[in-house]
């Protein structure tokens, strides 16, 4: 374990780890939106900015992408950091004024209103859904498309996400809950990706419990027996 300091408090992080995860473990609160422990750090939302002093030089950087290094000193609430975070949350709020989480975070950071024209977007472009889909699920059903202010997270060619297995991992990962999942009868729909798939019926209770595609993919990836998913999670345990 590598020792360093956050806000004067001695902490330790694993080799290859990042400053944000160490801070969270130590109970030090750093706001963040695009970080999730199950995927690689990305550094898109820029909310987890901190100041890092290394070899006497200070620089502002995102804590989720900053690797654990011996002897560094991290400051999470300097005037500079708070000033930058405040503007960033205002920018996100202007982009997605309807998102509850963003409204709450903005209020906490002292942002009452926005000084920009309000957009009508809901997605904060953190990319977590796409990264979870790629790195955890392995389905690669969605990806960022276009550049700059036209950037969007979409299925290929803005149509139905043909590789989506409707597992719902993205729905759970989304910090602002704008993807949407619906189950009706024997069908599950991932609303944002326009994907509707048939579900499998449990042999014991008779309930539809998960999409066929998802179960097949999981069976293949985890090398499970052919009949493993004949029974739903509840009935198996």
């Amino acid at each position: 374990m590598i020792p360093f300091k956050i806000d004067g408090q001695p902490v330790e992080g694993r080799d290859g780890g990042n400053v944000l995860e160490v801070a969270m473990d130590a109970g030090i609160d750093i706001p963040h939106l695009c970080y999730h422990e199950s995927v690689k750090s990305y550094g898109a939302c820029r909310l987890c900015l901190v100041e890092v002093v290394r070899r006497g030089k200070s620089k502002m950087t995102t804590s989720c992408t900053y690797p654990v290094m011996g002897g560094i000193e991290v400051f999470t609430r300097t005037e500079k950091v708070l000033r930058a975070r405040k503007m960033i949350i205002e920018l996100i709020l202007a982009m997605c004024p309807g998102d509850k989480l963003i409204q709450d975070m903005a209020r906490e950071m002292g942002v009452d209103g926005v000084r920009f024209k309000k957009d009508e977007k809901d997605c904060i472009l953190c990319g977590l859904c796409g990264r979870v889909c790629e790195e955890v699920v392995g389905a690669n059903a969605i990806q960022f498309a276009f550049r700059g202010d036209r950037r969007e997270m979409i299925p290929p060619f803005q149509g139905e996400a043909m590789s989506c297995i409707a597992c719902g991992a993205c729905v759970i990962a989304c910090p602002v809950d704008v993807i949407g999942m619906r189950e009706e009868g024997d069908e599950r729909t991932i609303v944002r990706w326009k994907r509707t798939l048939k579900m499998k019926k449990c042999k014991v209770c008779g309930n539809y419990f998960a999409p066929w595609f998802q179960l097949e993919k999981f069976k293949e990836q985890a090398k499970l027996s052919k009949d493993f998913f004949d029974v739903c999670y509840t009935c198996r345990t």
Partner: protein
Amino acid sequence: MKIQTKNDLEKTREEGLKSLYPGAIKISVGMATCGLSTGAGKVYEAIEKEIGKAKVPIRLERTGCIGFCQREPVVDILEPGKPRIFYQGVTPERCGELVEKWLEDRVVEDLLFCKMEKEDRILEGGVKDYAIQKIPSGIDGTPNYHQVPFYGKQLKIALRNCGFINPDHVEEYIARGGYFSLYKALFEMKPEEIIEEVKRSGLRGRGGAGFPTGAKWEACQKAKGDRKFILCNADEGDPGAYMDRSILEGDPHSVIEGMIIGAYAIGAHEGFIYVRDEYPLAIQKLKIAIGQAEEAGLLGGNILGSGFSLKINLFRGGGAFVCGESTALMASIEGKVGEPRAKHIHTTESGLWDKPSNLNNVETWNNIPIVVSRGAEWYSKIGTTGSKGTKVFSIVGKVKNTGLIEVPMGATLREIVYDIGGGIPDGKKFKAVQTGGPSGGCIPESLIDMPVDYDQLTEVGSMMGSGGMIVMDESTCMVDVAKYFMNFLKSESCGKCTSCREGTKRMHEILTEIAEGRGTTDHIELLKELGWVTAEASLCQLGATAPNPVLSTIRYFQDEYEEHIINKRCPAKVCRALLRYQILSDVCKRCGKCIKACPAEAITGKKKTKKEPGEAFKIDVEKCIKCGMCFEACKFEAIEVE
């Protein structure tokens, strides 16, 4: 033939010299993109036809750009014992006259541009004297190449061969000293010695950031790894900048030679040239050059018989400005989306495919053979304390002479704009120079005597960038300029970081508000705050430098912003929404030209005829779309713009 020994290299040089100076008349046509776009292709064909008719043998060659792009197509004639003659603005129709007169020992005076009596051979450190015995009639008044103001203050190191060799002939490159530096590096120097030489030369990255090249090489050489990569950044995306394109089109071997020397010093055996697909001619020239170098044993396996091998691959970029950023460029080569990543671990340690990688820009690579051949001591005498050597700039905009120039570091903006550029056309007043591409800044007149180098430019809120230089005069609106660049950057940001994507978008939005008369006094402070966050909080250099156009124009031209915001006036008369067109009734002759020209039917009045005096002309402000058509159409200056 395979070049394996120094003797082979010397022999090839002899061949090249015969090709460069064939002992007969040789006509060269500048056929880089600038030449071709003004019709050099047709000129070449026309000369070819004329040559067919001539009774003496005449050789016709294609060459690169000699820098004065504005005067293209440029044609030069070289004949033993005579001064070399450069013609400008040649058209196919004039080619017959051009050849005929030369054969009669005369010149076409109105096309004459300059003459040359000796040629600089910067790589070898000497001159090639044309040993003039005979002077064709009609060239007395023509200035010598170095007396032409455009060239007088230039020092061509990077552009040494552009316009003088046929880039498709490797032996011509060798004849002007090419690949001798490679020989010296491979057989007379250890890798550490080369790195030391580059370090001592003071060469800094020409791609924009100005990182010391030697230090970068050293870090990559010392990095642990079985496989290392050498990369060339030819993804030149700045609007109006084409330094790298010209080098690649006119002298591709200089870049390849630099890369081989670098690869040998660092210990890399594989390289990539990342060139934007919008440069088809550069790609073609590079392909030919790589093929020739491989065939000659200068590239590929067992280079010059030294046992050192290097494979150089060409990678064509898909047109994203952000791919000029080092990590985005590497991601793109890896087949991923061209998005930058955090660089807490340097690319010299973990770059392309997580292997130690050394990325330099085209012009940096092109400088390496010079550093090796002339030595660090010679090289470091050129330039300022912190910036050594020369820099190529593409000088464009509101300036008389536009084109590609190369000056020693430390040349002042005044020398560049007035001596080389010839000053501002149409008697207008100079306002600012924008340097460093879209994320550079605007430098005002008060700083015109500032020496141009990396540190000075950064200090005044701009940057060297890759070398774009846009001159602006009093008819340029600084709010409009900032808006233009912000529009470019908001579209070319990769969009990953909130601060860059939303920051540039909102800055553009506010600038639009100001330009359209809806600006408020809070806007200037808000722009400054947005600029600060975009620069400080974004991941890569695109974001870090993106606010420069806004911040530098506010810094030096805040009064112009205030005019827009408070008085709703655009002093340069550019921002259309703030313009008012009106007809001066005492000047108006009631001719009716403006009514015809107006697409919005906003002008009323009755035309004056022989019988009737007509009715006063008026512009309906509500209907007027401020297109300026009436202003253009009026012959009596009766339309006033306020």
